[in-house]
């Protein structure tokens, strides 16, 4: 037994609407992901700076 399917006109409206639904969701996820991405990049820059600072300090303290 296979399920019924009908109304080709309605179907193309339904399939378009389904794709719109999917697009809206992915659009939101992409935005969130890109935002998180830029946040993570800022965090990396801050960590890298700290690390350079820590090294300089270390060197200074071992020289002094």
């Amino acid at each position: 037994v296979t399920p019924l399917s009908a109304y080709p006109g309605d179907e193309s409206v339904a399939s378009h609407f389904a794709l719109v639904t999917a697009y809206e969701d992915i659009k939101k996820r992409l935005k969130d992901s890109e935002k998180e991405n830029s946040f993570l990049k800022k965090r990396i820059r801050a960590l890298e700076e700290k690390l350079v600072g820590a090294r300089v300090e270390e060197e200074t303290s071992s020289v002094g």
Partner: protein
Amino acid sequence: MEERHSNFSQVLFNNVEKFYIPGDVVCCYTLTEKFVPRPKDWVGVFKVGWETTQEYYTFMWAPMPDDLNTESATQQKIQFKAYYLPKDEEHYQFCYVDEDGLVQGISIPFQFPPPDSEEDIMIV
């Protein structure tokens, strides 16, 4: 047109994951107040971009609630067996199709990640 669109949300899919790890998938949905389920309604897994409801990847008949008047009757669950689910990286969505072939509910998209990408997803 607007009236038809509202049909697509007579059945609402809940707690749809972004990724389903390998295994059976439980699909939860809510029948909205005015929606009356019928014995040959079904829920299909469709690849995003489908054009006709015949293009379902797999489907299950929708269970008939015992008594529509109880509150719990509107909350339904279907379990899709892992064996029948897609194994690629495409995007899929659930659609609830009534026995006349009309789409009554559409979910957001989800994926079945291949084994090698699982670690990444856990981190994300």
